[in-house]
């Protein structure tokens, strides 16, 4: 346990340094003049010109040597300072907090709803077998094949326009969260119900499971004592991966529902060449990635303690 945490801490430091350095090198090596890009984002398309770019270049010291800029970033980072956005001038930490907070909220809410959908349906598929299994698998393939954007629009048409239950877009109240979270959940559940089903099927077929039935336990007792834990390990690991990939990968949902998440923010920061924000966002995501992985590992270890001895 201690060894695992220590290893992860080391990993965290490497990720922070690696991600920050890589984004720095990649963004600096993009073609085009950074000052112009930043000026366009700062002052808007009607007001960007070379005077604005010159002002930006002077203010941000963009003429300094890249190594010097890198050194500044690194020493700032050692003092836990992510710097200020080149576009807004606001501290990066504030905007990353705002964006990451909203992304995590949406991701967690989506994941929770997807768990509520995927686990019962997956178990039912494995339990009942055909024809229900084929129907559910077909349905999940169909949903999976649809871009998440389409699912979102369909939900908006039905629940926001036709029924008028929820707002079309925006954030700030619980009602705003429902549609994006359910959209996300449905596309996630379409995959994770397969994992639940496969894992459950494998367990139900296993010799130890059959034996426990033979020795006289009821179906429920068998499931509770020998099913749950065995099914849970791959499922929990998979949910963990889904959660991580979601936090950075829900740009479509974020822009459809005007949700101020980090995927959307990162895309905009890249267009604007706002390097501190890109670095800050990438860093925060790297850290979240390592932390969530650690959490999932710990959870799996708790479910299946045999891993410790290895």
């Amino acid at each position: 346990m201690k060894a695992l945490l220590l290893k992860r801490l080391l990993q965290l430091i490497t990720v922070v340094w690696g991600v920050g350095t890589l984004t720095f090198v990649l963004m600096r090596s993009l073609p085009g003049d950074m000052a112009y890009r930043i000026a366009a984002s700062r002052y808007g398309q009607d007001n960007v010109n070379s005077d604005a770019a010159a002002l930006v270049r002077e203010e941000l010291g963009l003429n300094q040597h890249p190594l010097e800029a890198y050194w500044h970033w690194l020493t700032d980072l050692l003092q836990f300072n992510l710097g200020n956005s080149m576009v807004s001038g606001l501290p990066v930490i504030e905007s990353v907090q705002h964006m990451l907070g909203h992304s995590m909220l949406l991701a967690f809410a989506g994941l929770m709803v997807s768990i509520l959908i995927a686990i019962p349906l997956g178990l039912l598929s494995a339990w009942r077998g055909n024809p229900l299994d084929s129907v559910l698998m077909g349905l999940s393939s169909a949903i999976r094949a649809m871009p998440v954007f389409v699912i979102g629009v369909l939900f908006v048409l039905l629940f926001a326009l036709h029924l008028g239950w929820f707002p079309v877009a925006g954030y700030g109240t619980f009602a705003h969260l429902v549609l994006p979270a359910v959209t996300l959940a449905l596309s996630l559940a379409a995959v994770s119900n397969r994992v639940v089903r496969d894992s459950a099927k494998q367990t139900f077929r296993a010799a130890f499971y059959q034996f426990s039935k033979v020795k006289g336990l009821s179906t429920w007792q068998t499931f509770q004592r020998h099913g749950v834990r065995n099914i849970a390990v791959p499922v929990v690991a998979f949910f963990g991966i889904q959660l991580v990939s979601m936090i950075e990968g829900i740009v479509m949902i974020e822009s459809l529902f005007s949700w101020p998440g980090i995927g959307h923010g990162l895309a905009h920061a890249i267009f604007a060449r706002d390097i501190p924000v890109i670095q800050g966002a990438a860093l925060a995501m790297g850290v979240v990635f390592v932390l969530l992985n650690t959490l999932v590992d710990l959870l799996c270890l708790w479910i299946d303690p045999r891993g410790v001895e290895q």
Partner: protein
Amino acid sequence: MTRLFIVLISVFGVMFSGQSMAKPTPENTLSISAAFEFTSLDPSKNGYIFSRMQIIETLLDVDEKGALMPALASHWAISNDAKTWTFDIRQGVHFHDGSLLDAAAVVKSLKIALQKHGALRKAPIEQIEALGDHQVVIRLSSPYVVLGAVLANYANAILSPSAYAKDGEVLALSSTGPYQLYQFSPPHKLVVEKFDDYWGKKASIPYASYLTGHRAESRVLQARSGQADIVFGLDPASLPILKRLPNLTLHSNAIPRTIVIKLNSEYPFLKDIRARQALSDAINRVGIARGVLRTPGAETEQIMPTSMSNWHLNVPNKVSGGKAKAEALLAELGWQKNKDGYLEKQGEVFTVRLITYADRPELTTVATAIQAQWEAIGVKTKVDVTNSSAIPMGHQDGSLQAALIARNYGFIADPLAVLLADYGQNGGGEWGAMNWHNDAISRLLSELEQTTDAQTYRQKAQQVAQYIYNERPVIPVTSYVQQTSVSKRVKGFHFDPFERRFLLNEMELIR
């Protein structure tokens, strides 16, 4: 696991209950949706959104026709040599932080604006000083008639002295508008609250919210569902459906923004006026206005809209026969079609790289329509979609050949300011002509800077418009029509063609 779940649910509950208890409710809030994002409190950067939401105000204002009106300056006077401008500062005006407006506050704001990016830096300002508590004098080194319009630009908003940090950074948006900032969550959401001590017409709607809707589709949905009371920048394709909804009224308003093609007149293939004329003739503007933009009647061959009558020539748009004329002009120049159907002269193929930017989605589709129309006369056209900053950059490094842009000629209420920037310097400016040397234009524009007589002004402005029309340093394509939907629960909606204000304080919500 169950416990974890309960904890998470309650965390969400706590996070949301705090937010939903806030004062603005759908009943007392006018909700607005448009495409612009904002990142900063600084008027020089995102003032366009703060002035639209009527948080910030300027010394002078602009009416629908572009004429200057008193705002924070109740009266102003220009000396005979047009080099000294004196402003009487309105008395009894409160900033949102409670302090009173005086000349010192105005001087401070303007001096800070002068340090930042904006049109004020272009003005030949020698000195800005306060004369007592209620008068401000601006002295210029040379006459500059557009100063009034420049001062009305959002970047020169007057903020409370306590709103600035020592280095001029804006810490709080404390200005004098009928609404004050209530919630600022960049880049998406802004809520304003009515300001009871406003000096002018006080607002009746308690709150107004602004939400950035990035996608035109989501803005349409917000209009349809009634979630947004006013939606700006609707996609014309969605208008027929919206028209049928009983709870909405639609407004189409012409705005002084024009889609033009900026050309590099030094580019060998475009050096001759006839080549530029041919490219202009080859464009089917009516088709683009009707089929691509779905705003029939928006086609134009002039940069300025009819509303800016000083700068608009009274000539009809050419309607038909463009393609044949274009081909004839190019043949005159010695271009002949090769076996691939492209124009060729001395072994060189007529190629043009047309750049445009994705900030305005219609530009990309218009660019591809123009590509098809130019290819039809044998001009090999490559379209590159990039960032808006590529236009000034390409102008400066000389790499630009042609660029499709949407130019806002009402950015400063007096179009002369924009024309000076775009055509004033010999050779042209970053958002106007490029390597187009016309001494008459430079002379006329610099004379206009000092012309106060209306008759002479119009005469010279018409000459400028005629030169641009004849020599095509840029090719105008269509003008813009702003499509807006307004919920029936909103009374008193009115569109400001200069897009300076949403005129929130003149609206009411019907219960």
